[in-house]
């Protein structure tokens, strides 16, 4: 449904104000939906249509249920697309609608300008619809169950992509391969007169030597040549897949890459949008009669339930902190080296570069670099950040540290690769039996073996030969293998 006249008026006002503040967004199309439709769109990850799959239905049931019990309410939903599409819930009050519109303009600006979104498909709504059509066609041809089972298996691997690939110059989606053409093998000969040659260099010995060299070369000729982190791409190229199966892997991989930057910039993206909605609302769009309602909404969005980490809150506060610091010149060696607490707190050079700085930050950073660069001990203290850990002895989760270094290390650690294990394909002819070997890049955290087993089972369905993963459990080197029926552990000596 299109906007009501009153909403249209407010949309135009907020849009004009945002532009005046320097925001540079894709045009935003707002749609007015009932709560049921909002839940539907949310279950589809924001899109009006997706390929048929039960997990969207499951998500919808969860959302509807938690909505019905009043546990949760979806506030804003906006798609990274040109034009951006955002949804307003028709039963919301005017103050909610204004807030959401202001927030959405912030997101759209972020999508358009942040470099980590640079590679994303800006016609994703169309692409998603095309994906849906392709999957439906496969289902019509090969049967719903068959296609669905395969989708289930591949979805289980959807996070196995390479976040760095999007910055490669080579966009050809190739896997690193050893060179096809190699020089013919030259077997070393001992120099001899022609008539003596058969005796000095007996042909049988030469042949033996040639075979030995060939074996050695074969050993070196591995696929992939280097460990490949884009496991889905590797499967497209090397797994024994039918055309429709390749197509499914391709679809899921493309969607994974599309959603990737939203995971890499969760704190920044929400912080940026919140920064702008608070600014636009309080400076401009808020009616005096709405102040209390607005304050209540904000309290909800930025609340810190004891012990939890709220990306909206931390992101917003960090952007404000950066603006304040650059306005007052609180950066650079002189400020960093200042040890006088008083002087540091009241430091003000009247630099006035705050606004400029935050726009630069929203362009060039992702969550990891954002926190790495701008998190200060003062900020940590103010925001009451702490590290928590599970205590084996007391069997409960406890606050383990409030030191700045520890908090920062933990925060960066848990954001690395979206908090997920880093896994590469290292061999496709493991044990010379055409079996697949993965390697878990162990960075201090063990894999959950229950999940690993189920995931390996799904990988095996795609690879069709036994699959293995090399990892460490409790500091001990292990290989776990799945051959389609059994999951077994091998101790690496």
């Amino acid at each position: 449904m299109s906007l009501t006249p009153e909403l249209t008026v407010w949309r135009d006002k907020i849009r004009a104000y945002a532009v005046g503040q320097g925001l540079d967004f894709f045009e935003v199309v707002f749609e007015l939906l009932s709560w049921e439709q909002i839940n539907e769109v949310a279950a589809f990850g924001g899109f009006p249509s997706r390929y048929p799959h039960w997990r969207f239905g499951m998500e919808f049931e969860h959302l509807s249920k938690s909505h019905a019990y009043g546990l949760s309410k979806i506030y804003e939903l906006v798609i990274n697309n040109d034009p951006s599409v955002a949804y307003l819930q028709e039963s919301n009050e005017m103050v909610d609608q204004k807030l959401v519109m202001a927030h959405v303009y912030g997101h759209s600006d972020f999508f358009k300008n942040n470099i980590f979104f640079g590679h994303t498909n800006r016609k994703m709504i169309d692409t998603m619809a095309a994906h849906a059509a392709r999957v439906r066609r496969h289902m019509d041809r090969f049967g719903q169950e068959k296609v669905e089972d395969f989708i289930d298996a591949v979805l289980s691997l959807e996070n196995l992509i390479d976040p760095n690939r999007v910055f490669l110059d080579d966009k050809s989606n190739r896997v690193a391969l050893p060179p096809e053409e190699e020089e013919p093998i030259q077997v070393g000969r001992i120099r001899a007169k022609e008539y003596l040659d058969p005796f000095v260099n007996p042909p049988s010995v030469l042949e033996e030597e040639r075979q030995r060299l060939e074996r050695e070369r074969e050993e070196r000729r591995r696929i992939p040549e280097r460990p490949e982190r884009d496991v889905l791409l590797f499967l497209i190229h090397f797994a024994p897949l039918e055309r429709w199966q390749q197509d499914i892997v391709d679809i899921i991989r493309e969607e994974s890459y599309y959603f990737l930057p939203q995971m890499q910039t969760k704190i920044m993206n929400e912080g940026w949008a919140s920064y702008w909605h608070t600014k636009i609302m309080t400076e401009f769009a808020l009616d005096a009669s709405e102040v209390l309602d607005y304050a209540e909404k904000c309290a909800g969005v930025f609340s810190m339930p004891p012990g939890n980490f709220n990306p909206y809150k931390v992101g917003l506060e960090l952007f404000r902190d950066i603006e304040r610091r650059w306005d007052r010149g609180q950066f650079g060696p002189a400020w960093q080296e200042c040890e006088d607490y008083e002087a540091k707190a009241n430091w003000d050079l009247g630099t006035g570069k705050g606004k400029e700085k935050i726009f630069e930050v929203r362009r060039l950073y992702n969550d990891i670099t954002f926190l790495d660069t701008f998190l200060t001990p003062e900020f940590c203290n103010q925001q009451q950040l702490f590290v928590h850990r599970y205590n084996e002895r007391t069997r409960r989760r406890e606050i383990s540290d409030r030191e700045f270094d520890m908090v920062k290390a933990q925060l960066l650690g848990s954001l690395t690769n979206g908090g997920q294990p880093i896994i590469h394909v290292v061999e496709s002819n493991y044990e010379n039996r055409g079996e697949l070997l993965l390697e878990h890049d162990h960075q201090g955290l063990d894999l959950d073996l229950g999940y690993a087993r189920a995931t390996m089972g799904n990988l095996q369905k795609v690879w069709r030969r036994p699959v293995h993963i090399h990892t460490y459990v409790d500091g001990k080197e292990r290989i776990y293998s799945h051959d389609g029926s059994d999951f077994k552990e091998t101790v690496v000596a």
Partner: protein
Amino acid sequence: MVLRIERDRQRFREIVKGKIKQNFRDFISQGEMIGRQDGKIVSIPIPQIDLPRFRHGKNQGGGVGQGDGEVGDETNAGQPGDGHGHAGDAPGQHMFEVEVTLDELAQILGEELELPNIEPKGEKQIQDSSDRYTGIRTTGPESLRHSKRTYKRALKRQIAAGTYDPRDPRIIPIRDDMRYRARSESTSPRANAVIIYMMDVSGSMGDEQKEIVRIESFWIDTWLRNQYKEIEIRYIVHDAAAREVDRHTFYHLRESGGTKISSAYQLLSKILTEEYDVNEWNIYPFHFSDGDNWGSGDTELCVRLMEEQLIPVSNQFCYGQVESPYGSGQFLKDLRSHFKDDGRVVTSNIPDKNGIYESIRTFLGKGN
């Protein structure tokens, strides 16, 4: 408006049903499901429906939280990607609760056990009248105001009068615009059924036997409720004497002493003649015992009561014999030899919980 997601949702429900079916034999013999019943909804634990991913173990590493508290204080912080289970746990055994309605459950029961639908006896129907708010009128209490119609009329009136401005869409209904819901009566034929559970509570029936009766009666209820719109359930317990009790007492009472089954049948006969008109009710007596009766004289009396008074009025008469270490099981043999050819008497022997599945199929498989 039909939601596009409906297809995915249906598919999800199907998968859930599939999971329930896969484990249905286990569910049937488990009593715990009965405890999870809340009105018309039952929650059933099924193996997780989830897309597994490579992930880190749950209690490993830490997370960052915000808020008050000293080092060492407990926190309820959720870890990023909070999940279930522990590293090294039996893999793939995470449980997940789904809610299904009793109707869906009955449907699954029907499909799994291949139960035929029951054709209610033609004459055993009565006209039932019910009031539904399907009409509209111009007066009524505010609580029954039909807002949509009211505002539509107001909008029509304002457009006709030229007082409607699309840029400032204010619609103010006046007295004449008001519309209210009104009741109208509709009648429909209705089939009624009554289930009478009888149970032997003499000393030889132990807790395990009663648990079997409880589980079995849950499934019978579920099925018959699905088949009939209205169901009444009555409970009779007996040892040497019979009396009617409520549901709770029925399942928890423990008596000692001898067994005279005829006492229960006499009471049943009395209830049926006094309270249930054969022409209006579908009648389902179920009797559970360990098969130990007080002498053959009483058994003969039982058979006579059944032949003369009970079977003619019942849709079918069911006897379930729960094996107990003390019971002789003689009663089942006696009934089987007397009613060999009578399709209206259904008997079943239930050795243990695993026998419940077959027993339900026997009782409900005839479609009477």
